[in-house]
């Protein structure tokens, strides 16, 4: 019985980690109908930003304390939001709306890579980036324009490309070897009748629930939320109704990415090892959780995350631990066979 209760606790804490990531997935999907594969890498980025902030002069001065934790959390969420806006602006928006400087941006990155490869100094990187950006600008001026983009599949490939980019770029910039995340809030284990609870796990569950409620409020009870739902319902009509759709989509990305950042910090508090590929597996399972709950549905993402977390832990505890990575998918297949749009998902009307 004790063991069972302990496994229940383990499952809920693992599940709340998945749920945290799933919330961001489902947000972006709900508005854009886009599987943002880069989301799990923004989560990784958030963890690394938190790591660097905590190891900065200010972070070290504050140490493991509440103000220190808030600094790390807020700083990393803000940086993730910026990254989310950049991704949206330079990868997803071209083809939907006019987006000048897209080529400059990407060529600048390639140029910086060349600068690093050929010179290896800060100056050569800067020169390379500049040369790339100028080349991109010139090419754009002479008429290389993004093609109008409507296909989901192609947006999905862009998402995969951005995800590859962040993973491989991360390995170059942050280093491919794992780093260990500092303790930014003190952790205590509490023993309740033989079951060990720890404060960090409780924090993660609490924050995940809080964010779920907050997001529901934003989406259902604010003006921006109404606009988001309008964009989700029909992008072109929303535009005709006077909604600045680009701004709403950018906001959605910023919000989703900030959530990923929060997830990155909170989950690494529990499991303090970070590396540039850390987002892939949790990201995939979180995505499964979002689909399971009915993708686009915020409460569904939370439920899905908890189900996956609990199922994995119970399968390990009472079955074969070697099959752990398959459990999430087995449950997914079973539930989707019974309810093809997920637990909380609404069936979509087919238009003829």
């Amino acid at each position: 019985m004790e063991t069972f209760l302990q496994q229940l606790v383990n499952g809920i804490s693992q599940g709340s980690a998945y749920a945290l990531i799933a919330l961001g997935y489902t947000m972006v999907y709900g508005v854009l109908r886009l599987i943002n594969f880069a989301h799990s890498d923004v989560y990784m980025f958030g963890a690394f930003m938190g790591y660097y902030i905590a190891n900065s002069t200010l972070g070290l001065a504050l140490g493991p304390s509440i103000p220190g934790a808030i600094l790390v959390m807020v700083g990393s969420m803000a940086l993730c939001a910026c990254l989310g806006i950049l991704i949206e602006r330079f990868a997803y928006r071209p083809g939907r709306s006019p987006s000048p400087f897209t080529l400059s941006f990407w060529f600048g990155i390639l140029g910086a890579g060349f600068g690093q490869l050929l010179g290896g100094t800060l100056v050569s990187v800067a020169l390379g980036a500049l040369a790339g950006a100028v080349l991109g600008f010139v090419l754009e001026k002479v008429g290389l324009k993004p093609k109008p983009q409507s296909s989901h599949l192609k947006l999905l490939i862009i998402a995969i490309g951005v995800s590859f980019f962040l993973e491989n770029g991360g390995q170059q910039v942050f280093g491919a070897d794992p780093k260990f995340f500092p303790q930014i809030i003190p952790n205590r284990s509490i023993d309740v009748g033989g079951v060990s609870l720890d404060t960090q796990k409780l924090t993660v569950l609490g924050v995940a629930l809080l964010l779920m409620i907050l997001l529901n409020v934003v989406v259902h009870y604010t003006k921006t939320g109404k606009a988001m739902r309008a964009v989700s319902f029909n992008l072109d009509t929303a535009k005709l109704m006077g909604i600045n759709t680009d701004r709403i989509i950018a906001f959605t990305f910023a919000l989703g990415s900030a959530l990923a950042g929060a997830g990155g910090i909170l989950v690494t508090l529990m499991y303090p090892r970070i590396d540039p590929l850390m987002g892939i597996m949790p990201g995939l399972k979180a995505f499964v959780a979002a689909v399971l709950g009915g993708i686009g549905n915020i409460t569904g993402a939370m439920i899905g995350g908890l189900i996956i977390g609990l199922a994995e832990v119970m399968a390990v505890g009472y079955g074969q631990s070697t099959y752990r990575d398959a459990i999430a998918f087995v449950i997914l297949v079973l539930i989707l066979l019974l309810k093809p749009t997920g637990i909380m998902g609404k069936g979509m009307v087919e238009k003829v």
Partner: protein
Amino acid sequence: MKRWLLWLGVLLVLAGLEASLRGLIGPYAYQITVLVGVNIILAVSLNLINGFTGQFSIGHAGFYAVGAYTSAALVKFGGPAIRGLVGFLPAIGQDAVLLLAGLAAAAIVAGIAGLAVGIPSLRLRGDYLAIVTLGFGEIIRVVILNVDSIGGARGFSGIEQLSNFFWVYFFVLVTIVVIHNIVHSSYGRAFVSIRDDEIAAEAMGVDTTRFKVLSFVISSMFAGIAGGLFGHFTMYLHPNSFTFVASFNVIIMIVIGGLGSIEGAVVGATVFTVALELLRKLGPFRLVSFAVLLVLIMIYRPQGLLGSWTLFKGRRKAAPKAMVV
């Protein structure tokens, strides 16, 4: 009669190339050429689901793995028996029989796996179907990790090297001809009709569920053959080669080539494989540059490198017209 002569000529050309190619371009380029061929089979076959039928599978690596392991296991455990049966043949003939037996088994087992995945696709659409296919791929990988007799986490080693340029490109041609004939037959246009408008197709009397499942089964069979050829070329298999990233790679191939065109899939698979080799000179920036190029191609040339260009202009154009009627 003429067709037989054509195939005979093709076989002779392939055999000639097999005999001389390694010497002409060196073993490294030879190896890349063979891998290009395996990737072409994967891309052309996935194109039947994603490009022609308009379904969305990101689990192709699963069928590829099933084929690779099935064929390797059959040859490893049943090899002596089969060789005994055809002992009257010279060694090269025995190898051929063994490889074909392995590939046949690979196609059958992968086809059954495709059927298992195709059936849920009856109820699922779009992104839900995508994630389920991805899930099947991952389940297959985890199961392989757990089967000791085929190596599990240690990998399957000691596989006989039976496939080569000749066999890989022979099956490249078979794949292209079969998929081309399916798609361009009046029977096969049903696939395209599902992509273009499923409801209309149903209204016109197309049994959409049957064709959707069929596309999964056929596509999986060819992926299985690709796996068998791969395993018997590399002589070693490990589940790490069949993660969902491998499925993504096949999708990238068909999208950069041009979705829904056989020529596009061939070009996409070739460009993808060769470009990644050429970019090796960039060292650590290889994959970063590749990712950026991929994003740029999708932004500036979403129709793929080939776009609407096709080798068989007249025939291809006829297809959509017929659909409108």
